[in-house]
């Protein structure tokens, strides 16, 4: 059985209550004596002094000793002090009954609440001086034996109930700890869910805006390109237009292209719609993503595809397509000059694995550490949002899969996406 923790506020309250109860008990005991000594004035005065001393002593023990000494020792001290005082009073008044009466009362509270063994010492400390005083005062032995038996019986009964309370408290403590842990876990999940929710809302807003911006930007960009080409072909440009031809339109086109690349990034980051989940073949999504990413390759760059037959997976094909596209675009952008991105699929036990390797510049450990953090980007300002890989990571985790990355500066990068095979009946 565990001992109570003395610093527990509930234990302190319990001890405080016991001690106050002891003080009140001392008073009642004093009143009893008062009834017997009545109307002897000296005896009345002595009893009142006794009551005051007992009450003050108990209060002092509570306030001082419980704080500075071990509660166990303080309690022994208190019980011993009380019984000694009663014995002194009994000798003084020649009347041993108050001691006998207070004995079972003190015995009830003698069991230690601070330790397992305290109770035995305390009951001994109550019984020994009281019995000694009674026998010395010439009281019959049967009285001693009877009162000792009654006191021990009450002590045993109270000990059992204190023990039961102690167990209940320990149980409730365990339950409280378990609840607290569960609460902490829930709170962590909630924070996570809110963060995800925020990212999703930002994504939907961004995707919606990006779509609206993209359409006008397509013809604005194209028209500026056409205007530049037309101005180039005119032999004599009027003076006010010369500056446009050489500088302003080139800057304008550059600005348009920057807007376009950010918009494209935002659109990749999140699609505005939620799609129903279904069984699908990852290779279809890889194929589509490869065709889209191929349009972004430059001369000497290629995307090579070797797709093994793989089982179907369950989830959102659109989202997985987005993951493939994000990783392929990343691969293509990592190519510095000529190079290739190689895409393969493989059936690995319970997973479908898609490997996307590039022969590009590779990444340092510092970059790898932050790779999947939202808004982390190594592209210059105005070139990337740093959301592509964060979103890819989020989607794959949502599908119960994982993304691994292997890379070293100058040695290219390989992303491996693993998605669990669906065991649903197609």
């Amino acid at each position: 059985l565990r001992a109570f923790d003395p610093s527990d506020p509930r234990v302190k309250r319990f001890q405080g209550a016991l001690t106050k109860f002891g003080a009140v008990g001392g008073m009642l005991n004093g009143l009893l004596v008062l009834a017997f000594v009545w109307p002897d004035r000296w005896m009345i005065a002595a009893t009142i002094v006794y009551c005051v001393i007992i009450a003050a002593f108990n209060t002092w023990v509570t306030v001082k000793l419980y704080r500075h000494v071990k509660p166990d020792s303080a309690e022994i001290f208190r019980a011993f002090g009380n019984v000694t005082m009663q014995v002194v009073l009994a000798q003084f008044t020649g009347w041993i009954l108050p001691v006998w009466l207070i004995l079972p009362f003190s015995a009830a509270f003698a069991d230690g609440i601070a330790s397992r063994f305290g109770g035995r010492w305390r009951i001994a400390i109550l019984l020994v001086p009281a019995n000694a005083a009674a026998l010395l005062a010439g009281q019959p032995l049967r009285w001693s034996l009877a009162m000792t038996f009654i006191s021990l019986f009450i002590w045993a009964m109270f000990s059992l109930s204190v023990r039961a309370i102690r167990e209940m408290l320990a149980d409730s403590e365990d339950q409280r700890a378990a609840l607290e842990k569960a609460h902490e876990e829930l709170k962590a999940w909630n924070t996570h869910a809110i963060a995800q929710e925020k990212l999703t809302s930002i994504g939907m807003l961004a995707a919606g805006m990006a779509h609206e911006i993209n359409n006008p930007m397509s013809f604005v960009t194209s028209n500026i390109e056409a205007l530049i080409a037309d101005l180039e072909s005119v032999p004599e440009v009027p003076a006010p237009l010369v500056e446009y031809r050489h500088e302003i339109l080139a800057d304008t086109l550059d600005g348009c292209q920057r807007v376009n690349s950010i918009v494209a990034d935002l659109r990749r980051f999140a699609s505005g719609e939620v799609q129903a989940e279904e069984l699908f073949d990852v290779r279809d999504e890889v194929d589509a993503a490869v065709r889209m990413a191929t349009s972004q390759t430059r001369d000497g760059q290629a995307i090579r595809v070797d797709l093994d037959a793989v089982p179907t997976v369950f989830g959102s094909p659109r989202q997985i397509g987005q993951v493939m596209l994000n990783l392929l675009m990343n691969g293509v952008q990592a190519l510095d000059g000529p190079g290739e991105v190689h895409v393969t699929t493989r059936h690995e036990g319970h997973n479908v694995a898609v490997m996307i390797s590039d022969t590009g510049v590779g990444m340092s450990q510092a970059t790898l550490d932050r790779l999947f953090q939202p808004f982390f980007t190594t592209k210059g300002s105005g070139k990337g949002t740093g959301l592509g890989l964060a979103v890819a990571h989020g989607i794959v985790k949502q599908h119960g899969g994982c993304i691994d990355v292997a890379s070293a500066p100058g040695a290219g990068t390989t992303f491996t996406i693993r998605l669990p095979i669906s065991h649903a009946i197609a």
Partner: protein
Amino acid sequence: MPTVLIVDDEPAVLRTLKRLFHRRGFEVRCASSPAQALKIAGAERPDVVISDFKMPEMNGARLLKEIAACAPATLRILLSGQIDIAGEAISLAGVQILPKPWDEEKLLRACQRSKD
């Protein structure tokens, strides 16, 4: 002269592409809705169809699939903001996908195959 059918619900996009292809020696037809596009494709069998993806009524992937049924020889190009079409992978077999905003040279090169 090769014929190109351009489908987009945004008139400014249609005008821009029309001018681009017209200058490069294509005969250009424009449709501002999928329904109109199907009518023109069925009647004229253009060499190339360039379609936007997001349009009311029907998306570009579905439109190109229907055009493939009625005009199988037509080269099909989807101009798209990429991720829009990720869920349409299966209906996009045989379709060239180019990003929007487009690169003029890449777009023309994609169409050139029909000209040769």
